[in-house]
């Protein structure tokens, strides 16, 4: 775990109209970079807690603790299913020793690197579970997709910390619950959006996902138990969301197009 001091992040010396202009430019850059692919996720939950977005610092801490808890549960399940899986006992012992040294909830590049490493270390045992055909393959598949998500998203968040380090020209502060309210992270708009989306999805089971690329490729992922007639209401809901997303996208592209027309004077 990183032992960098918890210091408030500087606002990189930007203030006033210059800052507003830079922020606006970043937002435009984000719009422009985000319009090349649309992602629509539909999540079903037993209960929805009306937790508002707590900001990037608490958001990162939420993500880290949620990922840690989920990886812990997956590890427990794997041990219960197949205690003899190669390397699993060592992994469990390593995690136990690590938690004895430091079990505090923090957010940093090192923390997400640790979560990524843990997720990757669980892959062989999961692969063995899939190959074993234990009759729980659906559950194992969910775990596999969750592990993949944790690994990929941890990488993305590590990238956010890398960018932050470059912007601050020093190690970003270690985020804890104690300093999360005081810290002001000078994040790029697209990084803020990345954290926000990752926080929003968390470790929820995405039942349907559509990714539409600008070149026309459309990828639809549906959980098998929602692919049949029983899943029609959810599919309708998801389709509606896809239409919403495309409509929203068209509006955004319209604005960008108008801005470009204004820029070139045509």
């Amino acid at each position, binding site marked *: 775990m990183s032992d960098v001091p918890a210091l408030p992040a500087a606002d990189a010396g930007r203030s006033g109209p210059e800052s507003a202009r830079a922020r606006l430019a970043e937002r435009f850059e984000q719009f422009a970079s985000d319009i090349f692919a649309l992602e629509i996720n*539909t*999540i079903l939950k037993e*209960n929805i807690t*009306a937790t508002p977005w707590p900001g990037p610092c608490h958001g990162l801490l939420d993500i880290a603790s949620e990922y840690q808890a989920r990886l812990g549960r997956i590890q427990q399940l794997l041990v219960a299913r197949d205690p003899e899986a190669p390397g699993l006992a060592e992994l469990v012992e390593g995690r136990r020793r690590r938690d004895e040294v430091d079990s505090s909830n923090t957010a940093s590049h090192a923390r997400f690197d640790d979560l990524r490493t843990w997720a990757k270390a669980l892959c062989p045992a999961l692969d063995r579970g899939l190959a074993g055909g234990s009759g729980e393959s659906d559950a194992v598949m969910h775990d596999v997709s969750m592990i993949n998500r944790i690994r990929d998203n941890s990488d993305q968040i590590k990238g956010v910390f890398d960018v932050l380090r470059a912007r601050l020209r020093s190690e970003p502060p270690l985020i804890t619950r104690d300093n999360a309210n005081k810290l002001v992270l000078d994040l790029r708009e697209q990084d803020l959006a990345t954290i926000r989306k990752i926080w929003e999805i968390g470790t929820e089971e995405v039942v349907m996902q559509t990714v539409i690329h600008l070149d026309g490729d459309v990828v639809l992922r549906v959980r098998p138990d929602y692919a049949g007639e029983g899943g029609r209401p959810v599919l309708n809901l998801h389709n509606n969301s896809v239409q919403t*997303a495309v409509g929203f996208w068209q*509006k955004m592209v319209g*604005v960008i197009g*108008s801005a470009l027309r204004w820029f070139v004077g045509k």
Partner: protein
Amino acid sequence: MNATTGEDLVRELLGRGCITILTVDDRGDAARTRLFPGGDVINVVRRDVVGSPLLARHLADVQATLAALAALVARTEAVLDRLARYRRVIPAAGALVVGLGSGLSGLAPALWAVLAVLAWALVRVVVGELGRRSAQAFADRLMK
């Protein structure tokens, strides 16, 4: 849904990073749709709400949000188009101002010459008057 006008929605988008459309019932949040700037959508729905009229209402709210945005976008596009037209007029106006400026700067030496003549004439008048008055005062003193 908290925000109702396009301006409110854009403020929400810029301030909070996304637009949230929330539908609640007596059990709390029933459905929540978040629209992100690039068009990404995250839809979270309580399981028991799927297929219910409440969800239909939520979807109608989402469509209403989109309509409010569409109205704002149409207005924004109109403003941007107008600006694009002004943009063509502004260089012409700028050229006119620059032309006038260079014309005036060409006239400057002549203006300075005129000013210098006027100033010299003024000095001569003033000095002459002062001299005349002084001579008169001196003569008056002699005549006493």
